[in-house]
C-alpha cells in the first residue's frame, strides 16, 4: 500500500540536495554576511528568486536550460552519456537551484549574528583565518547551518512543481512522494495517497520541531 519507492526517492533527493547545497551555503552565506560590494543587493535578490517565483516558472526555465535541445543539456549528455531532463541527476540539479535561498539565508543570518569584534579578537589572538573560521565562526554559526540543512531537507521533500516540470513522474527515477500522492489521488487510490501524506506530515513536523529547537536562544539553555 505504502509507495516505499517514491518515499525512498524523496529522501534520497532531499539528502543529496542538502549535502551538496550546505557547503555552498556556508561559502555564499558567509561572504554575504561579511563582505560589502556593489552588487550585493542584486545577488541577494537573485538568491531569493526561488522563494517568490511559481515553481512552474522555475521549472520552465530549468527545462529550457537542461533539455536535450538546449546547449547545456546537450553538453551534459555528451559528457556523462545520459540526459539531465527526466532523470534523477536532473532532479538533483533542479532541486539545488530551487533550494538555494533555504540554505543561504539562514546561514547568512547566522554569520551576520557573530559580532565583528569576535572575529577581530580571533585575529588579534593570533588565529589564522582558517583557524578563526573552524574554531570560532563555525561553532558560533552551527545552529544556523543546521537550520539550513533541515530547511533544505524538508522543503525538498515537499517540492512539487519544479520536480514535475523537470522530472515528470517516472517510477523509481523521478516520481517523488509528493508527485506520487497526486498520482494516487488522480487514480482514486486514497489509501496509498493517505499513507504517503501521513509520512510526509510526520517528517515535516519533526523537521519543524528541530528548527524551532535550534532557533532557541542560548540563554534559555544556560545551566544553573
Amino acid at each position: 500500500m505504502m509507495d516505499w519507492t517514491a518515499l525512498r526517492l524523496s529522501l534520497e533527493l532531499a539528502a543529496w540536495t542538502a549535502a551538496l547545497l550546505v557547503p555552498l551555503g556556508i561559502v555564499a552565506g558567509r561572504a554575504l554576511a561579511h563582505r560589502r560590494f556593489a552588487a550585493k543587493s542584486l545577488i541577494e535578490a537573485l538568491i531569493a528568486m526561488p522563494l517568490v517565483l511559481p515553481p512552474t516558472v522555475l521549472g520552465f526555465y530549468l527545462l529550457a536550460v537542461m533539455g536535450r535541445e538546449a546547449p547545456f543539456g546537450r553538453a551534459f549528455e555528451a559528457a556523462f552519456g545520459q540526459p539531465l531532463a527526466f532523470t534523477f541527476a536532473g532532479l538533483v540539479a533542479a532541486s539545488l537551484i530551487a533550494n538555494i535561498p533555504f540554505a543561504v539565508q539562514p546561514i547568512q543570518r547566522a554569520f551576520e549574528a557573530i559580532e565583528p569584534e569576535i572575529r577581530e579578537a580571533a585575529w588579534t589572538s593570533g588565529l589564522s583565518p582558517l583557524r578563526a573560521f573552524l574554531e570560532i565562526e563555525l561553532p558560533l554559526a552551527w545552529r544556523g547551518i543546521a537550520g539550513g540543512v533541515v530547511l533544505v531537507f524538508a522543503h525538498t521533500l515537499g517540492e512539487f512543481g519544479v520536480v514535475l516540470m523537470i522530472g515528470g513522474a517516472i517510477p523509481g527515477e523521478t516520481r517523488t512522494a509528493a508527485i506520487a500522492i497526486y498520482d494516487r489521488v488522480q487514480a482514486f487510490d486514497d489509501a496509498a495517497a493517505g499513507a504517503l501524506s501521513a509520512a510526509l506530515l510526520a517528517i515535516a513536523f519533526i523537521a519543524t520541531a528541530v528548527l524551532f529547537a535550534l532557533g532557541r536562544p542560548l540563554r534559555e539553555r544556560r545551566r544553573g
Partner: protein
Amino acid sequence: MAETLEVALRQRGPIPLDARLSVAGGELVALVGPSGAGKTSVLRAIAGLLAPEEGRIACGGAVWFDGARGLALAPQRRAVGLVFQSYALFPHLTALGNIAIAMGARPAAEREDRARLLLDLVHLGGLDGRYPRELSGGQQQRVALARALARDPKVLLLDEPFAAVDQVTRRKLQRELTALRRKLAVPILLVTHDLEEAAILADRMVIIHRGRTLQDGRPRDVLRRPVSPLVARLTDQRNLFEGRIEAAGSETRLRWGGLLLEIAPRPEFPAGTPVAWTIAPSDAILHSRHRPSQGERENPVEGSIGEVLRLGETALVTIAPHAAPGAILTIALSEHVVDRNALAPGEPIKVSLVASAIHLMGRDGPAEPD
C-alpha cells in the same frame, strides 16, 4: 628586551587621523580624548584592524606598518594583545578555553597549564570552567586581559577597559592593573575618555582631538600646563581666561579685566600679545578674614562667592571677581577652611593667585565648532 612602540599615522578619511606617539617598554601611556576623537582608530591601526593611508608603526626592530613601502602586516603577525571595550570573549569557550586558544601552536596540555597561570595572575583561579555568560563584567574583563597576555605580546593595547563596569569594580581593576604592570615589561597603551583614570594610571598622557594628537606629557604637566586653550578645554580646566601681556621682562604683567596680574616672565609673549591663561583651582590662596598673612600682596582678587560645591574633603568655591566682570574663578579649598571662614554664596571673598602658577598660552585660531 622591552622594546618601544612607535606610531605615526595620517589619513584624510573616513576618520581623519594625524597622530604621533611612542610608548617605551614598561611604560603606560593613556590616549585621552572625547568620544569620536579617533582614540580607538589609533588602537585598531596598531593592532592591524585598520589600515591608515600613511604612516609607520614599529615595535622595537619589527616594522608592522609602513605606508611608504606598502607594508601592512596582518593582525596575526603583530605581537599585540588587545583588550576590546566589549571584551569580545568567545562565547562558546570557557574562561580557560578563551585564554588557551590564543597561545598559538603549543601542545594542548602546556597551553592549559599556562592559561591557568594567567587566570591566577588576573585573580580568577578556580573559574576556569565558566563560560563568559556565567561571569560578571569585571570577571569578563579579567579574562579578556588574560587572553590578551596569552600570546606573549610585545605591546598591550587596552580600549576603554574599565568603561563597562561599576565604579567599585573599576577602582579594583585599576588597582590590579597598576600591580600587574610592574610584572610586564612591554609598552602599554590605554585608551580612555576619563581624565581622572588617565591621571591615576598613566606615566604619560597623550591628548587627542579629531584624530590629531595635541599634547604629550606627564599627566600633572598636561593638566597644569596645557599647550593651548583647546587642550585646556579638553582636559576640563575650570579656570580658562583671556588676557593681554602689558609689560614684559622681569616686570611681566598680565591684564585681566581691571586687574594687572604679576606673572613669571615668558619671553615668547612680548608686551601687547593677547593670551589665554589658566590657573589650577588649588593654586589660589584664600585671605583669611581674621588673620591677614604674608602672601596677600600677590595678585589679590576680590569678588563675591557664587556657589560652594562640597565634594567630600574638598570644596569648590566659585568667585565672580569685581574687576573682571563675566569671568568665574573657581578655587579649591578644604571643607574645614570653608567652614572656618563661613564661606557662603553672596559673601565677599578675597584670594591671591600664585604668580608662578599662572600658565600662559597663545590664543586658539578661529574657534572650531565642537
